[in-house]
Structures are given as C-alpha cells and as structure tokens.
C-alpha cells in the first residue's frame, strides 16, 4: 500500500496535469512549437548509445568477474564497481563535464552524454550479468569440464545461453534507470530545438527530462502541461522497459528451475 499509493499518485497526477498538452502534436512538433518530438528522439538515441557502450563493457566485465577473474584483479574490479555504484549522479555529470566536455573538447554532445549515463548504469549491468551467470547450475560447468572443454568454450557455449535472459533483463532495467536521469545530462548533453543528429561530438542533444526540468520553471499553464507531457512520455518508455525486463526475468527464472532437475 505504502509503495503502490505514491506510484499511482505520481502517474495519475502527472497524467492529469499533462492532459491539455496530450495529443499527436507531441510526436510531430518540436519543442519550439507545441511538441516534444526532438526530445523523444534524443532520449531514444541515448538509450541506444547506453545499450552499446554500457552494454558491451558491463556484460564483458560481468562475465570476466563471474568466470575468469580471481585474486587481486577480482578484488580491484569489485572495488571500483562498488565505488561507481555509490557515486552521486550529479558528480558523474560534473566529472563528465570537466573531462569530456571541456578537457577533451567534445563540447555538449551525444557521446559525452552517453558516456556519463553509461558510467551511471555500468555497475548495475556488471552485477546483474555476474548474478545471472552464477545462477546457472554448477552441474553444467562440471559437465563441461568433465568433457575437457576449455574455459572459454564452456562459458560461450554452455554457461552463457541459459544466463542470457537474466543478462538481457538486467540490461533492460539499466536502460530504464537511465531513462529518468537528468543530473548527468545537465552537464554533458546541452539542449536543442532541432531533432538530434548522429554526430558524436559538438552537437547538443535535446532530451525528455530536460523538457520536464526547464518547462516546469517557465511560468504559464502551457509550459507546465508540456513539462507534464514529457513526464508522461518518459514514464511510458520506463513502463515498457520495466515490463520487458520482468518478462525476461521470469523466463530466466523458469530456465534455471528447469535445469536444476
């Protein structure tokens, strides 16, 4: 009840405030008019970028931690992963600004934003990948070892396939987390009333949470309604991602249950 009530209150409240702005123009007009098309595209672009950057690095590190690392490397990797997990998102944004935007001369850009978001969700992906692999019954690893399969082939062909639903569901939830983030982006993405481009550097990118943040502080009912509408779309993306994550997670659980005969 204590959990359900605020969740429902937020969804209903945001939806109610967004009502005047809801309509197809949201998806067909840009933020300089009555829509948020450019912000939606930018947010989706971030998701794709995070999937590529954090997905590759995070899943790779998770596999390494679960199956290959030992001793000092394992402890070091775990330590840094925990440090990152505890890092406030605003600090990640600020560090991204100082290094990527200023020092590397990337300016406000797609890549700087994607990197900042990726750093934020990386520990989560590492953890879920590691857990998914550890949940694969050890009998399978023993069977593979008993056949003289090398470690790499064991991981690739025997352990990864059953762990895949769990890994992907972790990825999806990580994307969901990054969808609602604002702090790391304030310092790295910039904003633009134009549609985002695929340029990695020097081109500012519009995104949904920025619309919420900015329009709420502009006086006037229309701006407030647009802010709420951007919130509704963000929530929509979030709910879709969470639903996909849950479906995959339940598939992962069924997989594991079936294998532990």
């Amino acid at each position, binding site marked *: 009840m204590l959990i359900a009530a605020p969740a429902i209150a937020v969804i209903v409240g945001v939806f109610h405030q967004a009502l005047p702005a809801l309509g197809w123009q949201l998806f067909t007009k840009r933020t300089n008019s009555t829509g948020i098309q450019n912000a939606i595209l930018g947010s989706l672009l971030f998701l794709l970028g995070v999937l590529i950057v954090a997905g590759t690095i995070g899943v790779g590190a998770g596999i390494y931690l679960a199956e290959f690392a030992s001793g000092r490397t394992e402890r070091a990797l775990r330590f840094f992963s925990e440090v990152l997990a505890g890092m406030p998102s605003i600090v990640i944004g600020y560090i991204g600004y100082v290094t990527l935007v200023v020092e590397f001369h990337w300016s406000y850009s797609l890549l700087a934003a994607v990197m900042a978001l990726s750093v934020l969700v990386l520990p989560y992906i590492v953890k879920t990948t590691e857990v998914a692999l550890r949940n694969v*019954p050890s*009998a*399978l*690893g*023993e*069977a*593979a*070892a*008993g*056949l*003289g*399969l*090398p470690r790499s*082939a064991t991981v690739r*062909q*025997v352990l990864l*396939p*059953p762990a895949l639903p769990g890994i992907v569901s972790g990825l999806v939830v990580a994307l969901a987390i990054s969808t609602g983030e604002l702090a790391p982006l304030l310092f790295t993405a910039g904003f633009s009333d134009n549609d985002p481009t695929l340029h990695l550097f020097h081109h500012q990118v519009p995104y949904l949470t920025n619309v919420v943040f900015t329009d709420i502080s502009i006086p006037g009912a229309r701006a407030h309604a647009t802010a709420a509408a951007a919130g509704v779309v963000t929530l929509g993306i979030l709910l879709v991602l969470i639903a996909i994550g849950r479906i995959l997670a339940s598939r992962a659980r069924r*997989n594991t249950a*079936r*294998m532990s*005969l």
Partner: protein
Amino acid sequence: MSEMPAPTMTEPTVDPSVLAATPVDAPGTPRPVDAVFTVEQLAFFYGANQALRDVSLSIGRHEITALIGPSGCGKTTFIRCLNRLNDLIPGTRVEGRIDFNGSSLYAPGVRAIDIRRRIGMVFQKPNPFPKSIYDNVAIAPKVNGIRANMDELVEECLTRAALWDEVKGKLRDSAFSLSGGQQQRLCIARAIAIRPEVILMDEPCSALDPVATIRIEELMVELKSDYTIVVVTHNMQQAARVSDRTAFFTVDVSEGGRTGMMVEVGSTEQMFTAPSDQRTDDYITGRFG
C-alpha cells in the same frame, strides 16, 4: 580426419614392478594384467582437512571397477582425482601417485583438459546441457575440432548409449524433454563422443528408477569391450551385478576427523564371498553402513 588433438602424455609403458609393488590386493586375487590406472598411496586434502588416505589399487583395462562403501568414505573424491576434476576446487591438494597408462597424471606439464578428454565422466544427477539432444552429443567433438561426419558420429554415440531408437525422430528437441534415465544415457553418449579410454561414473543410477537403472547397468557391461569403466555406487547389488573388481572404502573417525580410506580391493566375486577384512564383511552383510 577424426583424430583427437595430440595428447600431452606419453604412450603406455607399464612397469611390472609398479604393479607388483601394490600391496593391498586380497591374497590370491588375480591382478589386472594390463592396468590403465595405477594408484599408490593416494591422499587428498580440502585445505587442512584430509578427505582421503591410503588408496592403492590398479584399475584394469576393459574392466568395470566398482567403488563401494558408506557415505563420506571418499569414493567420489577419489573418482574425481582420476580425471583431475578436483582441480576446479581451490585449496585442494593431492599426495601420492596416480599413473595413467604408465605416466603420472599430476606431473607438471600435464594439462587437466587433455586428461579429461581421454577420461570421460558421468555424474550422479543427469546433467545434460540446455540444448538439443543432437547438440549435447555434438558439442565436445565440435569444440575439439573433430572433423568427422557429425550426423554419423551423433548416431553412432546415441546407438552405443542405447538411446538412438528412442530419440531418432526428435534429435532437435530439448534434452530436458527426455526422462531421467534417457537423460543419463544421453550423458553417456555425450561422454563417449570424444572417444575417451575411460568412463568414470559417479553413482550414475542414484537418481533413477529401477527399470532405468537396469538399462544403465546393461549398457555398462556392453561398453566395457571398448572402455574401461570405474563406477562409484551405494548399491552393493549393482556392484555385484556389473563389476569385475571391487574396492571397499570406509571412513576413519579415529583421530577426530573424518578421513576416507580404502580397505581392500579384489575380484568382485571374492570381495562378496570371502573378503579378507572384517570391515568389508560387516559392510557387505549389512552390519553397518
């Protein structure tokens, strides 16, 4: 081109004096003439805990050797020394000597994965991979680069494991669609697909019903013309039915710990009719264990 990758061990040179030096066979037992394994004074440690001591025996080629004894007597630990599967557990240590075809199994430079390709294993619970029936058999030959006609190889192995007739129409189905007994025979087919010399079986029937158990036992007897088989079993009737030689293990609790040890080894007939050690007799006649 269906050759195995070059093994790192040298070919067998069985030194007769090594066999003659094994002291624990019951008197009057014919020793295996051609030993695949010669084990001398093997001891095994999990960290500081000694799990096994005083194991000395020879395992004959194309024979079935049964390892019997009460729970916790180190049978499973011992059989896992024979293919170096215990290497996977950190902090474990082996003392003594195991010769495989005349060369030390634990010598430096001998790679465990090469050993395990020559010494297959079937586990207590059937543990097929979450793949199709076909892929379960084909995976190890594929990874090891065996270039045989894979369809023929899969059929041959499934036939050999007495499973072909039951699965030939559904090779692409999941291995989990099979019954427990069928899964265990699939695991046997998977093990023989890389043409090992030895098959180790760790209580292969303990999770199966009596009918499935009999099928596996029949299969073991058929397979011994091509393979050397070592089987751990809790079931003394099973040892009596299938094995040529039997080794009896027990637990020594005298020094406060629980250390498994081998008591005696001999031909199965002699072990079940006239064991030379009182502890074996007590176990076999059901006075303990």
